């Protein structure tokens, strides 16, 4: 059983986001990147499946600064193979372009299961899972919160709005968008990551030119603007609470 997990780095929201001079992209100079949280869940789910079924786990990631850390961390958790896709990401690569590059790579790996975080906060042209499923001509289930593997098939538990869940049986191979792993991503001790840095190997594959066609064009990127209907209440916590209570009373909230 081969499991391929997709992981990527996204801007870390502890830093304040700023728009660069072009006005259509984030200013990357001060940005710090962090693994997409849902991809971290996808890796955890893959490792949990490995622990249960002995599957082989490959983690695939675009080669952006810091990618070695997330790959070695995955290895420290138990991933068997690490691959980074080297290419020119500087000028901005959308998910369509990434999916097109990943398709042949993933085909070569002949996976039974492809896991990705169901979304990333900087997906502007849709999440990567369905796009890949399209190119690979495989089924896709998103918002998956749990996976059971059997010979030739998987049972995925998918979450729906309003607290509903459904169990779906699907033939392998399949692409699954992970909303949450069965267990929260585990802690990996720094010494284990350092150990992985010594022992694990990261393979590099060339992306070639990205074909970004079909994605949206960004006209303007901007910080949220305060709308006219919104009122920001200033003051100390007590003052704010008092005026809120006043407003609620006015509106007749009991």
């Amino acid at each position: 059983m081969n499991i391929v997990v997709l992981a990527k780095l996204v801007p870390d929201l502890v830093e304040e986001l700023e728009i660069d001079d072009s006005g259509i992209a984030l200013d990357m100079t001060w940005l710090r990147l962090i693994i997409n949280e849902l991809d971290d869940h996808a890796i955890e789910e893959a490792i949990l499946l490995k622990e249960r079924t002995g599957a082989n786990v490959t983690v695939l990631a675009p080669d952006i600064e810091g990618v070695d850390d997330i790959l070695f961390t995955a290895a420290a958790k138990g991933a068997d193979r690490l691959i980074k896709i080297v290419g020119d990401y500087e000028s901005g690569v959308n998910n369509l372009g990434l999916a097109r590059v990943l398709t042949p790579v993933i085909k070569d790996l002949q996976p039974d299961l492809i896991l990705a975080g169901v979304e990333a906060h900087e997906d502007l042209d849709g999440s990567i899972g369905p796009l890949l499923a399209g190119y690979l001509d495989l089924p896709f289930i998103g918002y998956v919160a749990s996976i059971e593997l059997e010979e030739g098939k998987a049972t995925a538990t998918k979450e729906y709005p309003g607290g509903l869940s459904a169990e779906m049986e699907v033939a392998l191979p399949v692409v699954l968008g992970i909303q949450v792993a069965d267990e929260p991503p585990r802690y990996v001790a720094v010494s284990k990551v350092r150990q992985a840095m010594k022992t694990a190997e990261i393979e590099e594959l060339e992306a070639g030119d990205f074909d970004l066609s079909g994605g949206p064009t960004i006209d303007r990127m901007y910080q949220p603007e305060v709308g006219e209907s919104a009122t920001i209440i200033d003051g100390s916590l007590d003052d704010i609470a008092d005026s809120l209570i006043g407003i609620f009373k006015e509106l007749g909230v009991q």
Partner: protein
Amino acid sequence: MPIRETFWNIPHWAEIAQYLVGLLTILIFSYGVIRRVRRWLQGRPQRRIDRIGSRLWSVVVQAVGQARTLQDIYPGIMHLTIFWGMIALLIGTILATVDWDVAHLLFNVQFLTSWVYVSYELILDIFGVFLLIGLGMAIYRRYIIRPDRLANMPGIGFKRDDAYVLIMLGLIGITGYLVEGLRIAVAQPDWAPWSPVGNAIGNAFIAFGDPSNRFLHYALWIIHILIAFVALASIPYTKFWHLIAGPVNIFFRSLEPAGKMSAPTSEEEPGVKEWRDFSWKQLLDFESCTRCGRCQDVCPAHASGFSLSPRDIMIKLDTFIWQPTNGRNMLGDTISADELWACTSCQACVDICPVFNDQLSSIIDMRRYLVLEGDIDPQLQDALANLGRYGNSFGKSERMRAKWTKPIQPKIKDARRDEVEYLWFVGDYASYHTSMTDKTLMMAKVFQSAGLDFGILYDGERNSGNDVRRVGEEGLFDMLAEKNLVTFSKSTFKTIVTSDPHSFNTLKNEYSENGNDHYSVLHYSQLFDQMITSGQLNVARKLGYKVTYHDPCYLGRYNGEYDAPRRVMSALGCELVEMPRNKENTFCCGAGGGRIWMEDPPEVAERPAEMRVKEAASLSGVSILVVACPKDLVMFQDAVKTADLEGKLVVKDLIELIVEATEMNLSETEEQN
């Protein structure tokens, strides 16, 4: 002339039989000792043979002199009398044997004669009384007072073992007196009054029975000898073992500063999962434990209702090693993760143990394994992930670390660029915690107004790693220390000063391991003490407050600094009323060892910080609890609320008192600016 006839009334065959039984005793004893030593040797290596002189001296003071045992008066005296009573009788017996069967037999001389002999008799009689008094105290304490710390042992058989020791010692003492009494009753030597107890017993025999009953003497002698041999042979198999393990353990104790934690004993497999992963010295710890429960009594986690008792950790590990495990695992089944995570690393257990066990090192080694397995509390996991990523537990960007400096004019020097005398290591809590930043600002202003040449590292500072290390995340500690050390090496300063005792401890004791010795480290209380003494800091107003003070574990117990903060308070005109638990006996606030990052389990009845603020509030006339640690401030301010003491007790950082007392200086500098 008074002279000792050692085998009076004892037939020759019995005398010889005694030596045969003695030989058997030695064999059984030696087998037991070898068995134990072989267990120790299965542990991981650890070097403990440096500074032989200090080691021997500490055996003299602590094993022979029982200094630490005596710190707890009743059990201390109880133990001292039993110990010295027994040792004197043992020495007496050895002397008598040498006198009779070596000196007399081989050389036909005796040294137990005339005044030497009568003093010998008198001294032994007195020590015998000591022994019996000690045993009486022990029986009264164990079976009538029944203190908590002797109760609820984790397992069976301990009560029997405890009673066995008391019974055997009691029997040896009593039969010894009876034999002596009978001998005196029959032989009636002139020097009998020199054995007051034996003489009294002899007189009683004369009064109530046939003084010439030599058979009774003979039978009692055999019983006495047999009991003594059984006791000797049983040493390595019973609680008596602490007689040997204790002093050996004291000899091999760590002589490093308390604040310098041992690195993992194995680099490939840091942490302890199986008992053989412990070092040989830790295995010796478990065997040395006398189950006295002193450590349990002072453990803040235990007092709060956590499942942890350092006493039980030692006992359970020893039992696990020596008894069939029946498929139970050491970690998980015998020692639970909850117990291990409950420890605040306060060091109280280590400092009170009469046999110098290091319970904390075993706890942390097992934690190291849990960390490797990722078996940790979710909040702790977040904190560690944040520390790895941002260098602080708050999960904030390091660029926000010095945000608190914004209102300060002139700007604080950046020690990475400008040469300074003092590098102020601000620490996470003082940098990021909302209830702390105003205190941090005060400290900056006091430094500036006193004209101190200081700087900070701005976004270059990382958490010092003290608590990370005690959580058991050694790799993360190394990483944080490396980053700080690189920044230190790029900066020019003479002394580091910090308000955080945890950072103080690791910077002082653990960073030097990595080859960085060119600076000294001060706690802010020490610096203020110096500044007040030298007149650099001018106390304008005597505060006249009646305050109490909480000794932070990592300043006090770990680094022995009790006086500097007290001198500062007194210089500021504060009258200090000590809490019952002060200085060495300080009671941890519950934040150390990474506990501040963890959730308290539901069984926790009253958190250590709540007990502590109640202790402070119970002092008459005291309404201010002074702290000298940012974590204390956070913990106690919260505890004052939850313990419903608002309005009765205020928690103040030492710096607040300094600002109040130097009010004048502050406004002057502000005007100058």
